[in-house]
């Protein structure tokens, strides 16, 4: 099993590799009200992970361990939390993060056909990233733009009323 630190099959430690980013995370956590009480510190875990993912793009084991150490938590607790919340990922994601909304409103208006078309054209399963790390495909549940259903998000760009036919164009736009 890979630890997620090795995106190219080469092992490396994100924390050591990117001292600048590490410092940024370190400063963020230092600014929190961390004390000796593990239970209290845990209350800062999720925001620290949000920040860490924001900085590093994903949360490989070295980053998890770093956060665990800073908050005096067990690595297993940190991993338990990361693996629980779908927002967190311990694998690198693509440059273009394609999210197909499969919330109810989008579903009844044909989101599945859109998702299937993305899967077919990108040769990806839901939750996977292309080997060149250009595209990641995921489904998500309701971005709150149900009037535009079915909705697709590419990074922060929202596409509304998407049909299977539009999928190829959306992919082509990502250059």
């Amino acid at each position, binding site marked *: 099993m890979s630890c997620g630190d090795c995106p190219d099959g080469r092992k490396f430690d994100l924390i050591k590799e990117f001292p600048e980013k590490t410092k940024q995370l370190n400063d963020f956590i230092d600014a929190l009200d961390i004390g000796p009480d593990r*239970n209290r*510190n*845990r*209350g*800062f*875990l*999720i*925001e620290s*992970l*949000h920040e860490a993912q924001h900085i590093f793009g994903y949360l490989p084991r070295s980053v998890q361990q770093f956060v665990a150490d800073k908050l005096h938590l067990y690595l297993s*607790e940190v991993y*338990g*939390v990361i693996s*629980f*919340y*779908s*927002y*967190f990922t311990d694998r690198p994601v693509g440059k273009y993060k394609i999210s197909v*909304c*499969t*919330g*109810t*409103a*989008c*579903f*009844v*208006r044909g989101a599945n*056909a859109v998702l*299937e*078309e993305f899967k*077919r054209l990108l040769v990806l399963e839901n939750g996977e990233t292309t080997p060149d790390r250009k595209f990641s495909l995921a489904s*998500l*549940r*309701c*971005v*709150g*733009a*149900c*009037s*535009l*259903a079915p*909705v697709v998000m590419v990074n922060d760009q*929202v596409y*509304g009323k998407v049909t*299977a*036919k539009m999928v190829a164009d959306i992919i082509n736009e990502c250059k």
Partner: protein
Amino acid sequence: MIDSVETLNKRVEALRRESLAATRILVSMGTCGIAAGAAPVLAELRRLLAERGLENTVEIVETGCIGQCYAEPSVEILNPESNSGITYGKVKVSEVSMIIDHLADVVPGLETVNKTWYYPEDEANADNRLQARIVLRNSGRIDPEKLEDYLKNRGYQALAKVLTGMSPAEVVKEITESGLRGRGGGGFPTGMKWSFAAAQPAGRKYIVCNADEGDPGAFMDRAVLEGDPHSVLEAMIIGGYAIGADTGIVYIRAEYPLAVKRLKIAIRQAEENGLLGKNIFGSGFNFKIELKYGAGAFVCGEETALIHSIEGKRGEPTFKPPFPAVSGLWGCPTVVNNVETYANVPAVIRRGAAWFRTIGTEKSPGTKVFALAGKVENVGLVEVPMGTALRDIIFNLGGGIRDGKQFKAVQTGGPSGGCLKADRLDTRIDYDTLTALGSMMGSGGMIVMDEDDCMVNIAKFFLEFTLDESCGKCTPCRIGNTRLHEMLDRICTGRATGDTINKLRNLAYAVKDTSLCGLGQTSPNPVLSTLANFEEEYEAHIRDKKCPAGVCTKLITYLINDNCVGCTLCARNCPVSCISGERKQKHVIDQDRCIKCGVCYQACKFHAIDRI
């Protein structure tokens, strides 16, 4: 700094005098407005007003949602004097100049949208309008990023009233008497919840706002937070005073960046103006509000899971008792209420419990916001008094079914709810009538389905959602729902055997009966209610291996009949190129390669393709 009722009133006076603009242009800048293209429209408005030197007479207000999502981007021209105006829907950038040309009257040829609501606080007469706006009283009317706008609209008056003239017990009593029930799904009486927490010995207590809004297809909490964040803050401070808490926490899902941004602005403004912090209104009462973020887990909407999530743990629910009101966040008494519940509170306090009870039904006073979506014409938010008939919501406010199709069912309560058939359209909905019909109010998601929807597939969809979102802690939900889903999958793919319906029903009841938390206790509802209403559709799948709605791809075949004139349209559109045939000759589909996408079926203009 607003440190007393006097300074508050003076401030409001001054603000009223300041607003000189003869016309206000409201642009709805909620998530959904922005996604539909409101930003360029707004930019064009600003550019043209500047170009024409109108900046001082025309005021642009970036509001939150007005709820008419189907009409986004929308622009409202409002005359502040008469408080009347014109709303344009689906505005294009190219149309903006015409709108400015005709400030006072309707631009001929542009689509306008009718207001279907009234404000019970302003207008005694409902004027036969179906919607009554209490929760959304400010949404779409004020700039959510300006405290001044909120203050001008009775903002923080309720808080002033509470802190300068009511005891905590009186506040709890008022809320209890109003009959306000939690809008987060369960409909638990809010006053009772507050009284439990208030009765706990003094010490650390918390007020938590549940802004996790996880029901896919529901977005009313988002609209409130984006459109009127101060109303939630005001209510939380009132709640804190009532139960004796000095800290409030808003737990908000990370998928709502705009709501987060506006909440942060609102909190900062409240702090800067002394509405949060120490000694609010000189009453000696202190209160602070923090934000905590979700990270993508529906189950964290469940209150014990939410508390664990704030504590930085996995969002797994725990058995109740103890209830959060007794032992919640960090083991302290904690009140968890929904965004919409809070948004009601300032109005209740201002106008009194008796007023609130004049709206809605006996057992469910007030209004409910529904997120109307699916196959209706007018997708959006509607706020109606409890007890409004489903038909009014779907056919009057919702504008009926799209594309002239036939209404088939409506799902209320999201993945925990159930579906209702046409014969229930006249039901006047409130908490109790919906539960009696085997559905649920839930958070107010309302998904309309038409003849093209397969109810087995819908049930499977909802179950897939709960499976994905189950925390996996307890056996019935973790394994039971998986088995239910597998059975549904077998039905949809023609592999189910004769006794499947019975097995399905029995297991569904067992999962409901034994699950640990609300998620598992309600997750079989979509299965049970579709079974109750559409058993024949299940049987068609199982016995005849047919999907009557033509949705379950494994059970349908596309065949080209003799109507084919050989126009080649289908062949050119088929994504897997599995249709062959000479020009002007009858075409054929290679069934082995067909992925049943239905593109050809829709493309053919000669009704030459059968779906069987």
